[in-house]
């Protein structure tokens, strides 16, 4: 049907150091691939045209799931399926396990990786098209063009972050470890993403995301993940929301809500309330989320409907976090 152009070289390094050497040698002509579920489709559609593809799958040591210390360590190559099914992750980071289990369908969860989901390219109805169709539309800012078909006037790409794990990890205070020839740096996830749909991360061309580090949640920490999509399988989020808070003696504190599949960067809801757990507190949080989050026509689903779903997902996330999930 539509093959992958074979105009490039594939390298299969065995170590992170070897992978970095390849990136160093080829500069921005190189791209990384792990599960391949995102980038291969995009290469096919002409969104990327790398000369060298660095396949990370042969690297040992990036499949670790270490839940022992005060900071959990998850390797970038952990398969999404394994993350979703890992009993330790399910127990300690239930919102992450849930988000992983809701990614795509069974086959793609076996192929895709945690690092790949964190680095998933932004999505937009005007970009996730074949080259022919982007051509007919006159291209767009994200690739080959100068206009944005979503905002019509904007100069900045607003393609949507569509990763399921990003909002969750953000609420978990996760950081990512990035290796480069300059050494290793660690960045909070919220500093990893930027609000530019063309490229929504600060990952440098010569850097590799090797690990995700998640502080061990306090015993009082509650968390949840909600995803909006029409089907129960296969599809990207039309909207998603992660929530976490401490609940101690019936009092909510450190409430954190991150909403995504809206803009290029997941969005943290600001000025959230604290205090005794109550319907009023949840109402206030829902109203704030509704006010602050405005979906665009960048991805599928009616915009007004998606916006109305922001407070709905927030309420559901509360219920989920409190173990109140109503029987279906």
């Amino acid at each position, binding site marked *: 049907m*539509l093959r992958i152009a074979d105009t490039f070289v594939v390298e299969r390094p065995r170590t992170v150091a070897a992978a970095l050497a390849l990136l160093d040698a080829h500069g921005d002509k190189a791209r990384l691939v792990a599960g391949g579920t995102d980038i291969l489709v995009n290469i096919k559609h002409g969104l990327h045209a790398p000369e060298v593809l660095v396949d990370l799958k042969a690297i040992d040591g990036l499949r670790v799931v270490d839940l022992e210390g005060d900071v959990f360590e998850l390797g970038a190559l952990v398969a999404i399926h394994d993350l979703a099914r890992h009993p330790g992750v399910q127990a300690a980071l239930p919102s992450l396990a849930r988000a992983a289990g809701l990614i795509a369908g069974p086959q793609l969860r076996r*192929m895709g990786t945690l690092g790949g989901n964190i680095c998933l390219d932004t999505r937009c109805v005007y970009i996730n098209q074949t080259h022919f169709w982007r051509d007919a539309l006159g291209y767009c800012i994200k690739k080959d063009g100068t206009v944005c078909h979503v905002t019509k006037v904007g100069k900045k790409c607003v393609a949507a972050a569509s990763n399921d794990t990003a909002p969750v990890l953000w609420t978990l205070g996760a950081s990512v470890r990035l290796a480069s020839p300059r050494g290793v740096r660690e960045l909070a996830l919220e500093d990893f993403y930027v609000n530019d749909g063309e490229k929504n991360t600060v990952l440098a061309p010569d850097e590799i995301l090797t690990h995700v580090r998640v502080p061990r949640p306090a015993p009082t920490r509650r968390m949840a993940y909600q995803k909006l999509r029409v089907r129960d399988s296969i599809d990207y989020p039309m909207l998603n929301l992660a929530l976490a808070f401490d609940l101690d003696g019936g009092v909510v504190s450190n409430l954190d809500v991150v909403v995504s599949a809206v803009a290029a960067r997941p969005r943290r809801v600001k000025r959230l309330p604290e205090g005794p757990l109550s319907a009023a507190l949840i109402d206030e949080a829902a109203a704030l989320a509704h006010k602050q989050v405005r979906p665009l026509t960048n991805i599928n689903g009616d915009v007004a409907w998606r916006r109305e779903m922001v407070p709905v997902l927030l309420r559901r996330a509360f219920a989920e976090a409190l173990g109140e999930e109503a029987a279906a």
Partner: protein
Amino acid sequence: MKIQFELNGAPTAVEATPMARLLDVLREDLRLTGTKEGCGEGECGACTVLIDGRAINSCLVPVVQVRGAKVQTVEGLARDGRLHPVQQAFVDHGGAQCGICTPGFVVAAAELLARDPQPDAITIREALAGNLCRCTGYQKIIDSVARTLSGDEEAAR
């Protein structure tokens, strides 16, 4: 480049560009056309094969990634001229109609049954939720998997 892997139990070597899709290598280089292409985007499951026992979409796997791996396709499920029990069940219980999605379903179902020989309806639906079918409404596919005979029953047939 030369890529070696185990295909349906037999050592196999192909000369292919590393980014060739496993789907194309199977269909065009190895002429195993049982694995089908419905979308080429990982969204329909018609191209499902097993890599090291895991069901994946072969339209999104560069062949270089199966180097040294065990690949199993629909052609490798039948043994000694006998259909795999789940294949027999699809034949007996209406699991196949037009048949274009059937190899993908059969492979995904075989993977499920290998780890859970007696799955309930919801487990079956979850395991097959990456495969699209437009003919059956899924009920006869679910029935086929649920009614797949165990090894002993199979032997008694």
